[in-house]
């Protein structure tokens, strides 16, 4: 094993299709016009010495090391800033250049600590390499003069250090922060000798600055100035493995850089097609949870939730699961048990859980956490287009002219894609943001939304209809697209519907709290501004009309012809790493892999033959239905893999009651999560670093997950599910996850061409990947829709049943924050807590003032479902009448407040609209105290109690 090599070409690739031929050091080179001489040289294998250039950022020309000579031209131009030209003859190594470079390096080294042997970058330092490359043997100036070698280290960031004494002020970090990440947190402060990299204002350090810890600066640094603390502690890695991040739905590719079985650092992989070499604070740095002391490594059982856990062997734990589920089925019937697959686990693991339930349990009571996030996307897009997924790849954003973001906060929830989007916006694309809250995208450095529609929570469908009203009544329909690709009758009916007066911006705007002229302006911009791309998130789906709004988004894309090519499309931003994959793998109770209904005899028979088991043709229970059935007394046992339903699902008291009503709750997870407080069997799970498999990201991209260390718990999650199946009498003898993928490919038309061999060869593919598209499908619906003609559906606005009134006059909406992930089980167990150690309630100054609430005060938040207390943050990011919080911490439990109202088509919970009241409070409420006491009691482990 060795480190995965990556070539730094010095400057970004040119996208020109015109070619230019030149000569470099006697070799003819042909490259795209606009390519730098430095990159052209690298293409032929000639490495021009460089320090300030790296191919993730535009050339800068400050270090004066990459100079070249061009025949017939005066001087020694920098090869990084000089583009190629037809017929020029370039020399990269001459006596004159050698002398200049040596002189430059002498100056650099005269002001640099000579501690190479003990330096963290020893062996991976470009300054060291360049000193060698130019043949530096002496520094004539000495080291005694005024220098920077005694500068203090900034160690404020938990993950990396800034050692100013080693800084050569090449500005690579500053440019990476600007160009790659788009945060503009870093700058060069001072002039001349006083120039230094500075995170924000004079008094700031990295932690207090606007730095978002994406790691782009660390990645770009050519010296040890910016170094990972893990690297400083452990030393240089000796091998690396390309794998996929297990956080959000962007699915970034990383090199896991290892020393033996110890992870030294995660470095974003340049060839990763989703992230193109970028990362965020979670994927880059927040992997320490894998070794956290609270991670459970042994299986445990108990008779009741009142008892402490008892560590047992895998055989005993698996035997308990099988015997309990068999007992429950004998006593209460075949349908009395079920399970939940995880969007955090691999496709292969998810596939196995649904196979276990359908084939081993003999029913279809399988669901996935996608139920509570993007299930409306699957259903809504399938009805409109015929496919349950987004239409583009992430690269597509680079060709968008108008970007419409609705119900999504990508800078927090999908930060790496957000950086790519921001780059396009800085290059001139227009932006429309539809969100009750003033998210960062609305106004940030060098970006300002052309329209922000701060709609009242719960009015998405109405606003989308009003946009459509404007387009149809103002004659902005793309008639050619509609005529060619869409169902004409459906379009006519829909056009008549949206043209009705109740859908006009004037009527809708009044009800939704948005200026009608802004609705009209946004509609005109989207319809006429060139390539229009819609990006949406859970602010669309997690409503009682989630599916309706997804359909309305599809209508809007169809009526403007914004489908079937690059730069456009309907793009759901998926929450967790494998939400798309979990849905693809047949995790929903009504359908098998590839979104085929369980009642379809042909499909079901195919599975029955391969699995050797009869399958039920009836749909099973969805997650909320499982809770209801448990309380009704017909659902008695559940197997939950990698999901914390107690913290993530709405109306916590309802979930608690349902879990208490079950006789056997089996939780498979890394930690004793909140659901485990009500569990009878705990099966320790493995991390993404400890297993092989695949994740499918929000752009349908199937990426490999590669094992870099032995599972600390002893088994990968797919092996645990196989053991349960075997104990239930349903053998699944796979030797490796690649065999599971082979079976998926055999049974699923959109995956026919997928195999580990192909993924190893080409990196990743986007489904459909089959005979028609052997290397996958970056853009869907080119030249026609999968379902035939595009289907316009009537999307009548129906107000939610959740209403404000005198008792509950405010509307609560929920969301995520950059540093934390989902229920926080992983990120709360990392240093990311320095940025967000508790959930807070955002409240508008007017609402705070009338309630006597000051910034930082404890407040009690009550809804019809329950109440909790948390601290208030007064901000005008939210409109009067709207409050906002995150759901990352169990001790505040935002979902105590949320109700079990849900989407009409899919039962996706309505997290985004809850009527609430706020009153001053002295601290955590009674409910929280009782909950924490129960959690502490429930997490006792007998062996540890005895040891104490």
């Amino acid at each position, binding site marked *: 094993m060795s480190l995965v090599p990556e070539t730094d070409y010095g400057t970004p690739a040119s996208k020109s299709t015109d070619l230019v031929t030149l000569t470099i050091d006697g070799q003819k080179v042909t490259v795209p016009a606009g390519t730098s001489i430095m990159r052209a040289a690298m293409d032929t294998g000639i490495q021009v010495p460089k320090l300030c250039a790296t191919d993730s950022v535009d050339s800068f020309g400050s270090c004066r090391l990459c100079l070249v000579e061009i025949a017939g031209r005066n001087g020694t131009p920098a090869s990084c800033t000089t583009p190629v030209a037809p017929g020029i003859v370039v020399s990269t190594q001459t006596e004159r250049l050698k002398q200049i470079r040596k002189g430059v390096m002498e100056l650099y080294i005269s002001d640099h600590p000579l501690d190479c042997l003990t330096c963290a970058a020893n062996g991976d330092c470009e300054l060291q390499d360049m000193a060698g490359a130019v043949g530096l043997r002496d520094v004539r100036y000495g080291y005694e003069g005024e220098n920077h070698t005694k500068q203090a280290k900034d160690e404020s960031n938990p993950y990396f250090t800034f050692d100013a004494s080693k800084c050569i002020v090449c500005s690579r970090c500053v440019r990476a922060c600007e160009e790659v990440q788009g945060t503009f947190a870093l700058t060069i402060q001072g002039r001349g000798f006083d120039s230094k990299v500075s995170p924000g204002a004079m008094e700031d350090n990295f932690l207090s600055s606007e730095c978002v810890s994406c790691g782009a600066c660390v990645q770009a640094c050519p010296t040890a100035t910016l170094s990972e603390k893990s690297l400083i502690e452990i030393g240089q890695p000796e091998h690396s493995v390309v794998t996929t991040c297990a956080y959000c739905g962007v699915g970034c590719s990383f090199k896991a850089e290892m020393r033996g079985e110890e992870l030294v650092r995660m470095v974003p992989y340049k060839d990763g097609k989703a992230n193109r070499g970028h990362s965020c604070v979670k994927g880059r740095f927040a992997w320490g949870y894998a070794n956290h002391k609270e991670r459970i490594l042994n299986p445990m059982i108990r008779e009741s939730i009142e008892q402490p856990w008892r560590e047992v062997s895998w055989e005993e734990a698996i035997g308990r699961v099988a015997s309990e589920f068999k007992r429950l089925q004998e006593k209460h019937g075949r*349908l009395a048990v079920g399970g939940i697959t995880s969007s955090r686990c691999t496709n292969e693991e998810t596939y196995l859980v649904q196979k276990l339930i359908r084939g081993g349990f003999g029913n*279809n*009571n399988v669901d996935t956490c996608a139920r509570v996030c993007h299930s409306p996307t699957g259903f809504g897009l399938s009805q409109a287009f015929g496919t349950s997924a987004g239409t583009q790849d992430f690269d597509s954003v680079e060709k968008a002219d108008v970007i419409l973001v609705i119900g999504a906060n990508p800078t927090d929830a999908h930060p790496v894609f957000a950086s790519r989007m921001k780059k396009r916006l800085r290059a001139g694309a227009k932006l429309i943001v539809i969100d009750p809250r003033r998210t960062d995208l609305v106004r940030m450095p060098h970006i300002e939304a052309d329209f922000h529609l701060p709609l009242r929570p719960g009015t998405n469908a109405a606003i989308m209809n009003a946009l459509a009203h404007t387009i149809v009544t103002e004659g902005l329909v793309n008639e050619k697209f509609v005529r060619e690709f869409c169902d004409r*009758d*459906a379009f006519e*009916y829909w056009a*008549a*519907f949206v043209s009705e007066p109740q859908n006009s911006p004037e009527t809708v705007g009044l009800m939704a709290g948005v200026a009608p002229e802004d609705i009209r302006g946004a509609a005109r911009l989207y319809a006429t501004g060139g390539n229009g791309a819609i990006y949406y998130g859970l602010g669309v789906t997690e409503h*009682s009309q989630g*599916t*309706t709004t997804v359909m309305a988004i599809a209508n809007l894309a169809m009526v403007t012809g914004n489908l079937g090519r690059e730069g456009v499309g309907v793009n759901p931003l998926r929450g967790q790493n494998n939400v798309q994959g979990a849905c693809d793998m047949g995790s929903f*109770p*009504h359908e098998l892999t590839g979104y085929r*209904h369980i*009642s379809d005899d042909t499909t079901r028979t195919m599975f029955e033959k391969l699995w050797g088991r009869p399958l039920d043709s*009836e*749909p*099973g*229970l*969805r997650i909320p*239905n499982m809770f*209801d*059935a448990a*309380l*009704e007394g*017909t659902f008695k046992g559940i197997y939950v893999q990698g999901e914390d339903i107690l913290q993530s699902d709405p*109306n916590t*008291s*309802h979930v608690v*009651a349902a879990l208490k009503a079950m006789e056997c709750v089996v939780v498979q997870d890394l930690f004793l999560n909140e659901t485990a407080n009500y569990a009878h069997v705990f099966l320790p799970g493995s991390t993404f670093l400890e297993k092989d498999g695949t994740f499918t990201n929000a752009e349908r991209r199937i990426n490999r997950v590669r094992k870099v260390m032995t599972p600390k718990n002893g088994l990968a999650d797919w092996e645990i599910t196989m053991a349960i199946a075997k104990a239930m009498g349903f053998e699944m003898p796979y030797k490796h996850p690649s065999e599971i993928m082979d079976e998926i490919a055999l049974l699923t038309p959109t995956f026919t061409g997928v195999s580990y061999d192909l993924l190893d060869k080409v990196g990743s593919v986007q489904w459909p990947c089959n005979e028609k598209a052997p290397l996958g499908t970056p853009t869907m619906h080119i030249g026609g829709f999968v379902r035939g003609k595009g289907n316009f*559906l*009537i999307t*009548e606005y*129906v107000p939610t*049943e*959740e209403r404000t009134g005198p008792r509950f006059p405010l509307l609560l909406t929920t969301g995520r924050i950059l540093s934390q992930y989902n229920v926080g089980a992983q990120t709360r167990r990392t240093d990311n807590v320095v940025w967000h150690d508790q959930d807070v309630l955002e409240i508008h100054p007017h609402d705070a003032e009338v309630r006597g609430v000051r910034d930082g005060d404890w407040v009690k938040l009550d809804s*019809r*479902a*329950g109440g909790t207390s948390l601290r208030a943050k007064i901000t005008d990011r939210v409109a009067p009448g709207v409050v906002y919080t995150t759901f990352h911490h169990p001790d505040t439990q935002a979902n105590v407040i949320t*109700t*079990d*109202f*849900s989407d*009409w*088509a*899919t*039962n996706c919970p309505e997290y985004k609209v809850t009527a609430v009241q706020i009153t001053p409070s002295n601290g955590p409420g009674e409910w929280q105290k009782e909950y924490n006491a129960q959690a502490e009691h429930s997490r006792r482990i007998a062996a540890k109690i005895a040891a104490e």
Partner: protein
Amino acid sequence: MSGHMAFDDKLVMMANQIGKFFTPQRQGDPVAGIATHIRKFWDPRMRAAIYAHLDQGGAGLDEPVRQAVARLKQAEAHH
């Protein structure tokens, strides 16, 4: 919505929500749309419960939904 809604009440609410989507559709039969959606996505015990609720008078069911549930019940009985 308070902590726990009665199972029947919740099913009635869910069925009416489905009805509110299909009723304004101007292509096809809305009642058939409602019935098909319930048939495709509700597990047998949920369907049995809504049939039983219909047998007891179907309180709270909107008219197209009532028709859809009745049609579905009849179709399943003859299957």
